[in-house]
């Protein structure tokens, strides 16, 4: 499956902070065919550092999509049956407008003058894309980690536009621990002199700070068990452990594909996301949702622990919503949602098929 990222530009988007971003670009890819009734569309929502290239082989770079194991002919999100869409999030750096985009008023990158964005803003822009594609109601929205937050936000914000929501390894709001790890990443970036208050475009980017932020991130994505299994105490060379080498490699790779300011904006959006904000309870947030839910968590995920998924499930069940929940056994920590393909394929395939049957 050869794929190509497309860009659509909208005149403007109104943001939660009160300001308007104009114009706004959205990078997206699609896989499979939209059927005549337009009822087989699934929006896949990427995690923090993901992008629109979810599946297949990129026409130009040859890169494989980040969820290629789950999306394609005969896979969990079966592109022989469904029309799958994935777009880069607002505030990102992979084609959709973000701090690295050019501000038309100044002709320079926005940098830190880019307005603060929220998870609901990101979802609002996704809704504009879905409308643009002529789809009134999605069969499903699905995503892991930050993608799970968006999947929940979709069901809450657009109850008539989503038949099913699949939040995987996610939460309705960050815990202090999750905020804390994000803050360490942000401080690492801002402590790098090359960050220069965000004004580094066309100059040397804060690569060391961003790499450190990514290293911290990778620790939180693994588990004690998976790190012991993967690295042990093996030495790479005389003065470097295997795990150190791995983290440095991951960090250095990351700076080539990710913008430090996007890191700041997106982690803030995640930290501020709270479905209970302004409401008496999480259950109240789900007042009016109409979609089914498939919630998946992983036993060894300590960054987005199972209890967070369970909180969501309990709030939904309290409203007698149609919700399936499975806590999958795993030793891979938060990474599990990208690793346990066969189990998730089984769950997603059955859940989508029954949702599609009900709608047809």
């Amino acid at each position, binding site marked *: 499956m050869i794929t190509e990222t497309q860009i659509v530009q909208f005149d403007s988007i109104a943001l939660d902070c009160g300001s308007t971003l104009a114009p706004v670009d959205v990078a997206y890819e699609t896989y499979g065919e939209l059927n005549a009734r337009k009822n087989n569309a699934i929006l896949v929502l990427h995690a923090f550092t993901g992008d629109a290239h979810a599946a297949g082989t990129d026409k130009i770079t040859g890169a494989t999509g980040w969820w290629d194991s789950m999306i394609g002919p005969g896979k969990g999100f079966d592109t022989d049956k469904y029309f799958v869409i994935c777009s880069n999030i607002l505030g990102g750096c992979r084609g959709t407008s973000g701090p690295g985009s050019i501000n038309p008023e100044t002709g320079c990158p926005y940098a830190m003058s880019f307005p603060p964005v929220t998870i609901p803003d990101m979802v609002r822009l996704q809704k504009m894309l879905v409308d643009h594609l002529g789809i009134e109601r999605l069969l499903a929205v699905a995503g892991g980690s930050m993608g799970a937050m968006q999947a929940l936000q979709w069901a809450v914000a657009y109850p008539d536009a989503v038949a099913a929501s699949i939040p995987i390894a996610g939460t309705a709001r960050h815990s202090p621990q999750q905020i804390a790890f994000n803050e360490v990443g942000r401080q690492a970036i801002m402590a790098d002199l090359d960050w220069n208050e965000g004004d580094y475009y066309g100059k040397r980017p804060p690569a060391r700070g961003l790499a450190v932020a990514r290293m911290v991130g990778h620790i939180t994505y693994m588990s004690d068990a998976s790190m012991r299994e993967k690295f042990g105490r093996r030495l790479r060379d005389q003065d470097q452990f295997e795990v150190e080498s791995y983290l440095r490699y991951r960090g250095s790779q990351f700076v080539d594909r990710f913008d430090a300011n996007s890191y700041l904006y997106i982690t803030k959006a995640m930290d501020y996301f709270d479905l209970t904000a302004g409401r008496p309870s999480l259950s109240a947030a789900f007042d009016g949702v109409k979609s*089914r839910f*498939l919630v998946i968590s992983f036993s060894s995920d300590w960054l987005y622990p199972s209890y967070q998924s369970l909180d969501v*499930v*309990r709030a939904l*069940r*309290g*409203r*007698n919503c*149609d*919700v*399936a*929940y*499975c*806590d*999958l*056994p795993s030793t891979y920590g938060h990474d599990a949602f990208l690793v346990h393909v066969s*189990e998730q394929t*089984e*769950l997603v*395939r*059955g*859940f989508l*098929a*029954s*949702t599609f*049957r009900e709608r047809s």
Partner: protein
Amino acid sequence: VSEAFVPKLLGRSDYAIISAIIEPKARVLDLGCGEGELLAWLAENKRVDARGVEIEGSKVRQAISRGVSVFHSDIEDALADLPDQAFDYVILSQTLQESRAPLKVLREMLRVGRQRHRRVPQLRPLERAPGASVHRPRAQNQAVSARLVRFAQHPLLHRRRFRKPGPVAALDHREAHLPARRAADHAAAESFAEVAVFLVRSS
């Protein structure tokens, strides 16, 4: 065995009886639904809104892959989440013996079961069910059976304690299977239904 007078569905006689009782398009909650085969059948053939609860992860996966919305949890916790009168039928078949707090489960089932004016099958305290075997527990199941006898004597199970005709409270299939095997006619199969299935259908 009992094939002659107890029909089977998906290889189980309790499923046949439950499926005969449940009305189309009902909201059904199956506690301890296993791999969801009964719920999937009911969803397909009776268009019910099917939900399940199952504690064993591999079974939960099987059930969800069948398209059944199953909650991975133990029964006590699962019931506590639910609003009152959320379901038309609450099924508990071959599961009560697994519960740590069976009476709590029964009360919660009554709470989440919808109150409706409908035909209510006769409640028979277990000791009065024809040929009930609980007074002669099988050796390997003595503890469970003794517990079931206590339930049978509990006021919760006695219809006369309810102002209106009470909820059907029937005990566990494994215990109830013996009388059905011995039963000789369809009426016995019907009484087996009452004993085999915990169905909440109140009036």
